[in-house]
């Protein structure tokens, strides 16, 4: 690691470590959500930024993870790790089975296909109340217990969630940097040429879709243990859309961008809600502003600004 990276990484880590102890509880709560959304957003970022795929179904996998954790712990009395694993397994299997056919589609058609998946899943979560509890949901999900250390406060859960998020970021970074990542970017830039170089586009897209579902499910399980109550309202198409916004706002090709996007979708509505009924309009306007003015996301816009300043500095020297 070069010294310049260290220069900003160390202060960031210090702020990260102190933050939950100095902010009020509701802010600590939002920071937990930021971590959870980062995990979910990473999957969508991989698809959007590296495969050019718009995935509007992340709430489905988020829901599967959450319900798996809720059902396993509350209804079956199993340890929470079982919920995490069951959610991951079901989500990945579903992503594979559904991904094979719908990932043949491209562009808008594929986006609509994933939107349909989210709509269907959201309806099923509501209809299958014997499993999900319907609108009443499943309550009393236990707090996570880490070798006898109960993660019962936002400030404690915060660390757990963010360590998971950092691990997921490392995994996503590995993927981008790997042989698979190379093939993904090639496919995004020119699928015709990628095929000519023997890259199996269909298989590759399916694999990334499965990884995206894994992240979604993991985020869902984390959410269930944080909220201790899950119901259909949390897994609607609206939620899929706000997950998609994370990479769109932050910058789809950048991993720190996902964190920025997650901060945006968790904090901004909360801050704006203090302004009364107008807050939804303001949030919408903020979104439009980011998408129109910064097509590469906040992180992309920041990087552009920095190169511009660096160039100016260079011309003086």
């Amino acid at each position, binding site marked *: 690691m070069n010294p310049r990276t260290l220069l900003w990484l160390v202060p960031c880590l210090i702020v990260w470590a102190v933050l939950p102890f100095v902010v009020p509880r509701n802010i600590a709560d939002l920071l937990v959500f930021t971590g959870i959304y980062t995990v979910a957003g990473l999957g969508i970022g991989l698809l959007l930024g590296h495969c050019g795929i718009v995935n509007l179904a992340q709430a489905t996998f988020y829901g599967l993870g959450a319900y798996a954790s809720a059902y396993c712990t509350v209804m079956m009395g199993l340890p929470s790790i079982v919920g995490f694993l069951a959610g991951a397994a079901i989500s990945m299997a579903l992503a594979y089975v559904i991904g094979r056919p719908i990932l043949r589609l491209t562009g808008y058609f594929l986006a609509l296909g994933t939107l349909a998946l989210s709509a269907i899943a959201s309806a099923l979560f509501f209809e299958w109340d014997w499993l999900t509890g319907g609108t009443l949901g499943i309550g009393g999900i236990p707090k996570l217990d880490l070798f006898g250390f109960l993660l019962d406060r936002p400030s404690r859960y915060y660390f757990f969630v963010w360590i998971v998020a950092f691990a997921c970021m490392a995994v996503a970074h590995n993927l981008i940097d790997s042989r698979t990542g190379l093939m993904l970017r090639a496919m995004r830039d020119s699928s015709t040429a990628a*095929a000519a170089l023997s890259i199996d586009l269909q298989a590759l897209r399916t694999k990334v879709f499965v990884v995206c579902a894994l992240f979604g499910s993991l985020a869902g399980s984390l959410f269930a243990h944080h909220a201790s109550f899950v119901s259909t309202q949390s897994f609607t198409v609206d939620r899929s859309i706000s997950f998609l916004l994370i990479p769109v706002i932050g910058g789809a090709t950048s991993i720190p961008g996902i964190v920025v996007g997650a901060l945006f979708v968790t904090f901004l509505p909360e801050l704006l809600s203090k302004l009364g009924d107008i807050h939804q309009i303001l949030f919408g306007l903020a979104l439009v502003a980011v998408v129109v003015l910064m097509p590469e996301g906040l992180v992309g816009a920041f990087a552009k600004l920095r190169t511009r300043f660096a160039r100016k500095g260079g011309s003086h020297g």
Partner: protein
Amino acid sequence: MAEPLLALREVGHSFGGLSVLRSVTFDVPEGGIIGLIGPNGSGKTTLFNIVTGYIRPLAGTITYRGAPLVRETIQQRGLQGLVRTFQTPQVFEQMTVLENVMVGCTKLTRTTMLQDLLRTPAARGQMREIRARAEAACERFGLTALRELPAASLTAGQRRILEIARAVIGEPRLLLLDEPSSGLNVQEIDGLREWIVRLNEEGITILLVSHDMGLMTVARTVHTLYFGEIIASGDMAAIQRDPRVREVYLGV
């Protein structure tokens, strides 16, 4: 006579009611440079698309290394050593020159998704190998100075060379070059010509489609395609003397 590397027999294709290829038959012998000329719309690119698996022919057979090519996908044909370039160079614009070449090398290695996600020693080793090979290829094709630049910033000539480097690193047996000289200046075409000869000497069989009569003289045998049929075959000198070719193609 030895079995040809690629053999086309009565290959035909049409789009809707429009017949593009009527009945095309010719061989590409192992180790040869075969040229294919013909006016615009004569079916050259369609033929390329058929051989490389982008289009399935409606009639005829294609045999590669003694076995028929029917249902094999583009990717499978690539793994068997059939590699093409495109009329408009298809570089990966947002990737660097080095990364572009690295992509060409991915098919020679294997990693699983899990290995890549966890960056296992095996995955890291493969990446190192890919990078080393790509760096060597950049060196060889004179791309070293450009290798950290995004491919979008390259000139037409540089894109051509990059596309060829990217194809060659994947160890093709038969390299199909679609109009490789279009958009190049005279010097660049001379360079391209040298590359074609050198790659052929290294054992790569070449099927070359071009409008460029000067470049075409590298081919040992040239087939002239006109409205989906081969109307003349022979070396370039013979082709240029052929009265039918002069009439339909050279317009004299």
